[in-house]
């Protein structure tokens, strides 16, 4: 037996890691293990396969022996392509400001580690993606969550209420996982005003930018005076379905960029070359994204219509998520999700997995084929009729 010095696990693992809460989704993973009869609306992953053109490029690259490291920064042609691509969201970035990361997750981690010192405050509007808060806490920072129920949006007034906490950064994700809401240019300008007054750096997670259905996505960094305050995160997982390739990128002001690059070169060295080559091709296949967006929009409209007959719900502006308020059923988020899974074989994620204020909501990903989606909506309706108290 390996000698552990007789210490309990909690003493061996660093305290800040030991104290991290496991993801609220873990328990549901266990419930579905070995079952293949469920319709899963729990998957935050596109159901379209990666375009064959992109896959071919990656296959050829392997055949030709492209299996090496790339520069820490990433392939020059990819960085140039991204700088050019981001002009569609109003940002004039130089290739020198683009760092290729292993997914957006790494980018967010790098930025937080670059910016947060013990005691620094990060503002995080909730409900939000599950990683932000733990990443801040790992760095010894204080994650101050801002409940945004029921509009799911920050405003100038809301942000200014947190002035006393002396926040250093704000982590914003729009269109938002899990709520699907996004911001108009005018609303972003308000946030920019607050950021200027509070001297905030904004980490802007724009991974769902291409999946915006109401007008065009506007990047915060495109607003006047914001280019030095905003770190943009984006990647190829959602719009191009390249989730397993792990290719993300950041566009950052020079000082923050330099810090992130240092950490990146020590912990990751570079993003996988095969995925980077695929990403170069992806940027040449933007017309395919238009088709995918149209299909998601069709599903969004359908899901919104069906769910709003049963629940209170905000219409998603983007993403492939809907976030209905299920509290009228008299069940908690977890009760609702577990019951729906056990009784009707439909998997959804309880809203409290995305922050305490998500209690009373569930997240449904409409990244499944239309016929399955129809079936799932019928089952949800049946479930609420049979087990819930119903709307109103």
């Amino acid at each position, binding site marked *: 037996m390996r000698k552990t010095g007789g210490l309990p696990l909690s003493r061996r693992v660093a305290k800040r890691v030991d104290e991290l809460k496991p*993801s609220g989704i873990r328990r549901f993973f266990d419930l579905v293990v070995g079952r293949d009869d469920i319709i899963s609306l729990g998957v935050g992953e596109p159901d379209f396969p990666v375009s064959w053109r992109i896959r071919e490029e990656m296959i050829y690259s392997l055949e030709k022996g492209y299996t090496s490291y790339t520069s820490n920064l990433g392939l020059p042609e990819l960085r140039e392509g991204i700088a050019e691509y981001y002009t569609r969201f109003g940002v004039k970035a130089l290739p020198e400001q683009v760092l290729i990361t292993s997914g957006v997750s790494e980018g967010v981690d790098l930025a937080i580690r670059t910016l947060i010192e013990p005691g620094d405050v990060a503002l995080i509007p909730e409900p939000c993606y599950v990683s932000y808060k733990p990443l801040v806490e790992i760095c010894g920072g204080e994650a101050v969550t801002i409940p945004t129920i029921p509009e799911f949006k920050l405003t100038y007034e809301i942000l200014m209420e947190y002035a006393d906490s002396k926040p250093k950064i704000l982590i914003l994700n729009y269109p938002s996982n899990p709520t699907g809401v996004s911001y108009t240019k005018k609303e972003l300008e308000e946030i920019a005003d607050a950021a200027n007054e509070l001297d905030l750096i904004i980490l802007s997670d724009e991974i769902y930018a291409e999946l915006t259905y109401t007008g065009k996505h506007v990047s915060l960094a495109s607003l006047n005076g914001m280019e030095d305050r905003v770190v943009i995160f984006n990647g190829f997982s959602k719009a191009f379905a390249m989730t397993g390739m792990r290719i993300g990128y950041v566009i950052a002001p020079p000082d923050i960029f330099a810090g992130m690059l240092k950490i990146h070169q020590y912990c990751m060295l570079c993003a996988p070359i095969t995925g980077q080559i695929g990403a170069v091709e992806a940027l040449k296949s933007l017309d395919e994204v238009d088709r995918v967006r149209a299909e998601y929009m069709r599903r969004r409209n359908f899901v919104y219509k069906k769910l709003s007959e049963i629940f209170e719900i905000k219409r998603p502006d983007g993403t492939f998520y809907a976030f209905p308020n299920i509290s009228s059923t008299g069940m908690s988020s977890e009760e609702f999700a577990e019951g729906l899974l056990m009784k009707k074989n439909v998997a959804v994620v309880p809203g409290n997995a995305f922050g305490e204020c998500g209690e009373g909501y569930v997240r449904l990903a409409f990244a499944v084929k239309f016929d399955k989606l129809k079936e799932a909506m019928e089952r949800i309706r049946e479930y609420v009729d049979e087990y819930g108290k119903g709307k109103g």
Partner: protein
Amino acid sequence: MDSEELEVLKMLEENSRMSNEEIAEVLALPVERVEEIVRKFEDERVVLKYKAIVDWEKVQEDFVYALINVKVSLTRERGYDDIAKRIAKFPEVHAVRLVSGEYDFQVVVRGKSLKDVAFFVAEKISTIPEVRDTFTHFVLRTYKEEGVNLFSDEEDRRLAFVP
């Protein structure tokens, strides 16, 4: 053609079963506008027909298809268009294309059996006075038709829950 019209056409080409209401929803257009666009394209014969792509092999009703390369000799009275029109009128003929290269036309023929198709070529196409030669290639299997892959889709390997 404006961008709205182009979008409607693309949607119909992708899935002609989409109703005007559905197209209107996706494109965020009034239903009346979509109806107007569809009617216009039907009237102008831009949209010619709404059709299903069927994998007949799956229902054991496979037809025999043949690609026939046809060489013709032109005369003062009869050009390519005249000959093509004559060939196209046969119901067995699915497509007629004037092509570059060694042959003049590529004709796609569908029949119930090999014999069916062979007789059709021998009796109906080869006997047209301008036809000099025919080269028949029977189709053994179709993998892709009209942009649609006929082999099974890849399985969904995603996990049941992902944040």
